[in-house]
C-alpha cells in the first residue's frame, strides 16, 4: 500500500492534524514505507484466528454506578488555555 500527498492530506484532516504542504511528500514517503512494512502481515493466513484485544483475554471490570470523584473544576481549569465563568472558550461554532 502506497500513499500520495493528497491521501496524506485527507488522513491528516481526519486526524485534525495540520500538515504543511511542503511536508506532505515526506510524510507520504514515510507512511508508504511503514505500510509496506505492515503489509508483511499478509504473509500469514489468519483465517479463523480469534483476534486478541487484551493480552490476558480479560473482560473490562464493571463498577457500581456511584459518585467517586469530587468536583474540582477550578483546579482542572487552572491549566486550560482559555476559560470564562467556568467554561472552556473556543472559537464561535454556530453563527
Amino acid at each position, binding site marked *: 500500500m502506497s500513499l500520495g500527498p493528497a491521501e496524506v492530506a485527507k488522513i491528516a484532516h*481526519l486526524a485534525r492534524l495540520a500538515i504543511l504542504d511542503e511536508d506532505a511528500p515526506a510524510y507520504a514517503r514515510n507512511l508508504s514505507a*511503514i*505500510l509496506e*512494512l505492515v503489509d508483511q502481515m499478509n*504473509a500469514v493466513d489468519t483465517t479463523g*484466528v480469534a483476534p486478541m484485544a*487484551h493480552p490476558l483475554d*480479560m473482560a473490562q471490570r464493571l463498577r457500581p454506578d456511584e459518585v467517586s470523584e469530587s468536583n474540582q473544576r477550578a483546579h482542572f481549569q487552572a491549566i486550560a488555555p482559555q476559560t470564562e465563568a467556568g467554561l472552556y472558550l473556543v472559537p464561535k461554532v454556530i453563527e
Partner: protein
Amino acid sequence: MNSHSAAALHEHTIARLSAGLAAGEFSSEELTRALLARIEQFNPALNAFITVTAESALAQARAADQRRQRGGAGPLTGVPIAHKDIFCTDGVRTSCGSRMLDRFIAPYDATVVEKLNAAGAVMLGKTNMDEFAMGSSNETSFYGPVPNPWDPEAVPGGSSGGSAAAVAARLTPGATGTDTGGSIRQPAALCGITGIKPTYGRVSRWGMIAYASSLDQGGPMARTAEDCALLLGAMAGFDPRDSTSVDRPVPDYAATLDQPLKGLKVGLPEEYFGEGLDGAVARVVESAIAEYRRLGAETVEISLPNSPLAIPAYYVIAPAECSSNLARFDGVRYGHRCENPKNLLDLYARSRGEGFGAEVKRRILVGTFALSAGYYDAYYLKAQQIRRLISDDFRRAFQQVDVIMGPTSPTVAFNLGEKADDPITMYLSDIYTIAVNLAGLPGLSLPAGFVGQRPVGLQLIGDYFAEDRLLNVAHRYQQVTDWHQRAPAAFA
C-alpha cells in the same frame, strides 16, 4: 557523615542506601543533597532530566528522615528516585517529552507516583524521553537528545532514555520507566543497567500518559535486579482506577531473589539468534548463557515462529491506539493552543500540528489510516489476529521452559543521528522486545558485557506474572558477574 564522603553516596545501590539509611550512616537529606549536586554538575551536558525538583526533594527527604526517627520506615523511605516525565506529578510539569505539554502542570499524581511517595521515596525530578514514548533513541524529545553515558556519540536508547542515562551516570540510583514495545528494556540494555517490564496489568496505568493502552506498562529501572525488586514491590498492585489493572497479590520480590537456578529450563529461540543480530553482541549473549549453564541452568532450543510478524503487527496496533489516545490533545482543555484560531477546526488542527513532533504525527497518521473506513479488517483486525499467533507461540514455549533468553537489542547503542531520519530502521531495533508487549508478558534486561565501550543487554522473558522468577534469575547472575557494577568513566 561517618565514613561516607558525599562523593561516595552516588556509587551505592538502592539496597545499600536502604541499609545505610536504616543504620543511620547518613540521612536522606545528605544523600539527596549529594545527588542533586551531581545532577547540577552533570545534567547540563547529559540532559537526562527535563525538570529537577530540588526544593520538594529536600522537603521529602527531611520528612523521610523524620519518619525514620519515629519508626515506620520501609526499605524505600528516604531513597531518591526519578520519574519518567510520562507519569503525572501533582503540581510539577509533566511534559511527556512534547511541546504539546511543555507548560502542562499535572493536577494529580499517577498511581505509581502516589505509591512511591507513600513508600517514602524522594523524587529528584522528571526524566527525558522520546515524545509521548514514541521512539527508540530519545531523539524525538522536544527537549533534545540525551548522550549515552558510556559514549557521548551514542544514543541512550528509548523511549525511557533519560531514566536509563540518569541511572547509568549515577545521578539517581533508580527511576521509573514505561515500556510499550521495549522502552524500558532497550534503553536499559544500551546504558548497561537493569530494567523490568512487568506483566500487562501488574502496574497501574492511571496517571501514566497513554500511548498504546493495550501494550503500555510501567516498571522500574535501576543498577541491579535486587533494586528493581524493591522498586517493583512498591509500584505494583491492584488499582480500581485502571480498568485493566489485575487484582492479584504482589509477592515479596526480594524474598525469592536467592533461589538456586539448578534445573532452571532456559529456552533459546532460534529466531532471536539469526539474521540481523550483530555478531559481537551474539558472542556476549552466548557467554552470558554459558554462565547460566555453570549456575545449573539447562538450555533448550525453542522456536517462536511468528516472531517476524511482531514489528508489522505492532506498527498497526500501536499507531491505531495512539491515534485514538492522542485525540484528547485538542488545544481546548489543556496543552498547547495555537494563536488566533480562525475557527474550531483550525484550533484543533493547528494546535496539534504545532504541538506534536514528526514521529508522533507519523504514528497518528498511520493509526488514523488503519482505522479509517474500508481498511479496518485489512489492518487492525489482521494485526490483532497475528497478536494471537504470537501469544500462542509463547504459550507453547512456556509449557516447555521456565524462562526465555536472548539479546535485548540486535546491536549496541547506535550513533546519535544515525537512524533519526529513517523511521523503519529505527523500528527494527525493537525486534526482540516488541513481541513481549503484544503477548503482555514480563521481560527484563540486564547488563551482560560490552562491545568496545558500549554495553550489551541480555533479555529474560517470563510467563505471566513470573516477575519474581525473572528477578531471581537476573539476581543470581549478578552474584557471579560484575557487569552491573561497571560505571562509565566520565561518571564514576
